[in-house]
């Protein structure tokens, strides 16, 4: 439990020195696409992906414009959430490091209690759900409350994605 708390942006597989210094990253992790369009294909250009993160075990549903940035099942990608694209003391932008960037608003935080005992523990497990809308493209991030401390309602967020090969 204590190991997982340190998740936000401190020791992640980003060896780049800029990224290590980034304090404004609210969340980042490597995700693997588990399912594509769980409810069937509804839109031509937009795909809903279900992914799970490798470090924090977060579950994510995300609408991606696959017309310009195709994502398929079992792909791994690095996803980060940040309130700003600018980096400390430099002309460089966070955007340079990523391939796909969306901007949106955090509009809802809710909780879900599940009677799950997967990690050996007993009793109910509480999970926090973060809802962000990127101009109508939805993101739902669900996981342990300890990873969601930086989020606040009405926050404007950048979602950054880079594929890992």
């Amino acid at each position, binding site marked *: *439990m*204590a190991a997982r*708390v340190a998740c936000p942006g401190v020791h992640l597989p980003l060896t780049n020195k800029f990224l290590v210094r980034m304090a404004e990253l609210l969340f980042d992790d490597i995700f693997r696409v588990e399912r594509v369009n*769980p*409810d*069937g294909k*509804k*839109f*031509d*250009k*937009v795909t*809903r992906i279900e992914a799970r993160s490798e470090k924090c075990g977060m579950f994510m*549903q995300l*609408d991606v*414009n696959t*017309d*310009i*940035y195709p994502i398929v099942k079992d792909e791994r990608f690095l996803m980060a959430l940040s309130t700003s694209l600018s980096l400390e003391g430099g002309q460089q932008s966070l*955007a340079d490091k*990523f*391939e*796909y*960037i*969306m*901007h*949106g*608003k955090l*509009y*809802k*935080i*809710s*909780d*879900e*209690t599940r009677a799950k005992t997967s990690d050996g*523990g007993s*009793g*109910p*497990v*509480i999970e*926090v759900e973060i*809802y962000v*809308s*990127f*101009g*109508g*493209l*939805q993101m*739902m991030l669900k996981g342990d*409350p*300890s990873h*969601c*401390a930086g*989020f*606040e*309602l*009405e926050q*404007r967020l*950048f979602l950054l994605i880079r594929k890992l090969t």
Partner: protein
Amino acid sequence: MLQVEVAQYINSDVRVQSLMQVAKPLAGFVQRLKGKQGRFRGNLSGKRVEYTGRTVISPDPNLKITEVAIPIQMALVLTYPERVSHHNIEKLRQCVSNGRNKYPGAGKITYSDGSSRVPFHNVRRKLADALKYGDIVHRHLEDGDIVLFNRQPSLHRMSIMCHRARVMPWRTLRFNESVCNPYNADFDGDEMNLHVPQTEEARTEAVLLMGVQNNLCTPKNGEILVASTQDFLTSSFLITRKDTFYDRASFSLMCSYMVDGMDFVDLPTPAILKPIELWTGKQLFSVLVRPHANVRVYVSLTVKEKNYIKSKEEGEREPEAMCPNDGFVYFRNSELLSGQLGKATLGNGNKDGLFSVLLRDYKAHAAAACMNRLAKLSARWIGNHGFSIGIDDVQPSKYLNDRRQETIFKGYQGCDKKIQLYNEGNLPPETGCDAAQTLEAGITRILNNIRDETGKVCMKELHWRNSPLIMSQCGSKGSPINISQMIACVGQQSVGGRRAPNGFIDRSLPHFPRKAKTPAAKGFVANSFYSGLTATEFFFHTMGGREGLVDTAVKTADTGYMSRRLMKALEDLSIHYDNTVRNASGCVVQFRYGDDGMDPASMEGKSGAPLNFDRLFLKAKATCPAGGNEYLSPFEVSERVESRLLEDDMTPEGGCSVAFKNSFKSFLDEYVKSLTKTREAFESVENLAAKENSAIREKIVKNISGVTPKQLEVFLNTCISRYHLKQIEAGTAIGAIGAQSIGEPGTQMTLKTFHFAGVASMNITLGVPRIKEIINGNKNISTPIITAALKHDNNVNTARMVRGRIEKTNLGQVAKSIKLVMTSRLASLVVTLDMERIRDVQLCIDANIVKESIIQTPKLKLKQEHIKVLDVGKLEILSPDTDRSKIHFQLHSLKNLLPTVIVKGIKTVERAIIKKEENKKTKTSKYSLLVEGTGLKEVMGTEGIDGRKTTSNHVLEVHQTLGIEAARKCIIEEIKYTMESHGMSIDIRHMMLLADLMTFRGDVLGITRFGIQKMGKSILMLASFEKTSDHLFSASVNGRDDRIEGVTECIIMGIPMPIGTGMLKVKQRDTLPSKLDYRPNAILS
């Protein structure tokens, strides 16, 4: 002879002994007064006016919703008298010098001395130069002038509204399509009327009371009426699709569409920044609602659109914004976060839609401006995008065809099976039906299923670009049924609520064998409109179509007369300054309008609740960001709420109804409960984990459902202050509004006139006929039903017993035999009761009871001494006649009559049915009785019935049994039920008012000429209603006088009526001016 002539002079309808044939009697005085074209209704109640116009209408989305385009030709004729002043003299000089045939010109100039000149060609220059302050120029209509716009039938007050003129070329009157709804107009050749108010006072009153922007809502139920329609919905739906993306150029272009490129627009940050900048269609709508930072409009709302997928299992969480169909519309601070916009958000008839919320939170101007922007954007966008329908849109695919064939085949098989069972006599009947009815119901169910199922497949298989599909999804036009009729299967045709009737002997058409019950023989159309109908199918389809046409024609006449009667009865009711509703003579009808004195037009919540707390709470939380403020604990919240609710404006004396206070309190209690629950959920988990996380957890809890002091304060204050603003204004002609609100929906009622009351086979009248019955206060209604509650409602057997007590039982049903016994000494009838059977159905009948009931049947003329009880189950009946020759025949006729003697039950009851209600949660069933027929008193008195919960739908019977207050309640409930079963929501306050008017004299008065007469109305009003001559004659004989205080009387006399703005009179100093002598001086004095 003279008498005949005189009588005919007065009334040419008087009957004359036909001594001589008059060629054609002249119209008598009475004929000139009465009737629709007569003096009263034709000339006194409705007068012909000048300054009007009428022509064909057409749409123009570029106009504002408050505008109407007027053709120049019309503007040349319609004039407005404008007084010359310092500010307009130059403009009016120009008008005068243009003359009367050039726009903008003037028709006439009136001078202060009363003379007037027409600016003809030769003098107009001179007149223009001579114009001076104070003259009145009758100038042509110009842009911005105030006009009244109307379309018949004027069913409600929004049928005539005030617009601003826009003088334009071409020959039609044009307006924004958003305003089609209140007028019920379309552009298939409709014509509309135009009136130009001629004084500043009239203009002011028109624009303030009748202006479009002040009539966006209907007072019928507070729903928005002026809203987007048709193409606007379609294009909004397509723009907000999840996969519409625009680059910078096209997004900016579309932003300029909506503001004509004349206003500032703040471009939002693109939703996708990399790999390329892309904006979504939803962001375009965020711009539409709030174009730039200086527009202080922060809308927050949630709406579930038609294609929203609800969670299937109970207890499962709603997907809300994550709905895979994108059917959950969520606006937060004027930003569209999710959802594809359709009719529920943008259209009329939803209180939580975008325009409703704009209207309530940011007033009419914001809503109107947003509608203008949407109209412009949609019209231009869809013009470029293109939207049409073609034959390929209705061509079924092979898969669809196969599925359709399969479904129809399966359905037919099911029907055949049922028919076979029926023919063999093995069909198990349903409760309260015989075999034939059961068969019909079964087959109809199967056939309706076929259409639904094919329709469903159809909707699933169509490509999303299919135009009819788009239109039905967004709600702009057409329904899934329409689509499946075009593509898959037209379905069962019904005539009079059942399958096609037998027009020939035992068959519907000679193409089928006799007594055929197959789907095809009784009007099932298996083909689609695309595949084409067979000859017989086509014929059945026309039968259904004809019925619809006839019904519409009959209905218009019926509802028109009903509206007229309602209007005449309610027209003079208005709110007074002491909050009472009174009629013209000051008689109190209600002590407080609708029990809470709220204005139905501004009710925001569902079913007439003043506010929608959920939405206001969401708005309060969204508009007051938490920032660094401290959140409140549940205890603090309830503490603050308590103290606020004790303040003066939440007390009954402060004008707050108890119902509102209670609902407000329960909402807040509910919130505190949920807040506590979230906290506890986190705390219970926290105990297991490390303590150091508590700060983080606390923060999350607050983000989830916390509230800051500021947010709570804002919420409480908005709710309370807004509640107080919703009080109805004194002077409102609430009677007329109520009459229109009940009369207008009548025209929209579909031909569904019957409906099952819980149990199949038990029909109750609905629709216009039922409303008529209630309003007329009929003595005999077509389907009286008593709903009786049982004392023990969980047992079928007790229910059956009680039913046995209520339902009438004949002697024939319980007798084993009725025999004629002839001996040498005596002739008699012996009745043997079937005691076994009686015991089986648990009736307590024995010979003594039978004897009593025979004696009480007067038709038989039998007395005590004629009947002998032999034992428990046997009676002997002697003939009352002693004449030996007649005895034989007498006994025979008695023998025929005896089986019809009612031995048990209530005579007026036709039948009683047990209604079973299953509760899915507890898996228990509740039973109640539905009794067809009258006799409420007897049913209530029956043992085993809970009289306190027993009601009837017969108003007059309820009045006789339970009294006038119960009758009032019954009227309200019955009108409400009828309206609701047609899917129409009407504010309960209107029905209360009607019910109060019908009962306030202590007797149930129907809204008919007899009832209205008893409501204490003036003679002139009664004469203008019906039976003109009778009222006038009786009034003159009795020397009645009329105080001219009602609406009709004032209109007849041409004076302002004491309602609304005419309620108050201005007090003037009463020093009389010096008397002027108009006569010429007498020559001789």
